[in-house]
């Protein structure tokens, strides 16, 4: 069963506007969440993370919001740039399970110049 879900397979945004990528999860034991970006023919690259004790984490143009009661997190990219065009994966982990991450199916973001 898919415990981390990204229901939007694709998203197109104009350059300079905000990109919002969404992720839902079902397992209440998840305590750490990450976003990875993946370009074709490359491995996923870590982007930003958030612990379940926080509801927001910011890093430059990237902000992740966590709503534990709704089991929902989102990644905001402001302003969006053409180089942000990639597949974005949401991932989650359970405490004390090492690097066993549960990934969503990904959202393909296209930023239109």
């Amino acid at each position, binding site marked *: 069963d898919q415990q981390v879900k990204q229901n939007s397979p694709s998203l197109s945004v104009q350059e300079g506007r905000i990109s919002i990528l969404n992720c839902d999860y079902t397992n209440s034991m998840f305590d750490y969440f*990450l976003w990875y970006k993946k370009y074709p023919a490359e491995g996923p690259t*870590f982007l930003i993370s958030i612990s379940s004790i926080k509801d927001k984490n910011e890093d430059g143009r990237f902000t992740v919001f966590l709503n534990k009661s709704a089991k929902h997190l989102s990644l905001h990219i402001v302003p969006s740039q053409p180089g942000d065009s990639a597949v974005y994966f949401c*991932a989650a982990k359970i405490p004390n399970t090492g*690097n*066993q*991450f*549960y990934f969503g*199916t990904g959202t393909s973001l296209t930023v239109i110049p």
Partner: protein
Amino acid sequence: DAGVTQSPTHLIKTRGQHVTLRCSPISGHKSVSWYQQVLGQGPQFIFQYYEKEERGRGNFPDRFSARQFPNYSSELNVNALLLGDSALYLCASSLLSLGTEAFFGQGTRLTVV
């Protein structure tokens, strides 16, 4: 510094054959994890090794096995290949066993015909 390196980058095998995939972690990283990414899906956890010991195993059949060497590099072995094993196999390394961030290699694209 070199990132996570995987070899080979591409591989074609016949059903029923055996395959060995290799991974060298980032220098100083002692944990290696393996993931399988089928087309259109997110990466799925297969194994984690830390200090040459298995620390976690995902829901994969016994045809899948792995090991970690004293220099922390790792091999993933798959026996009796099935068409459904065709996927991108990703290796990730982290400094600690309970690391909150994993760095991925570019992957090995395995095609089973």
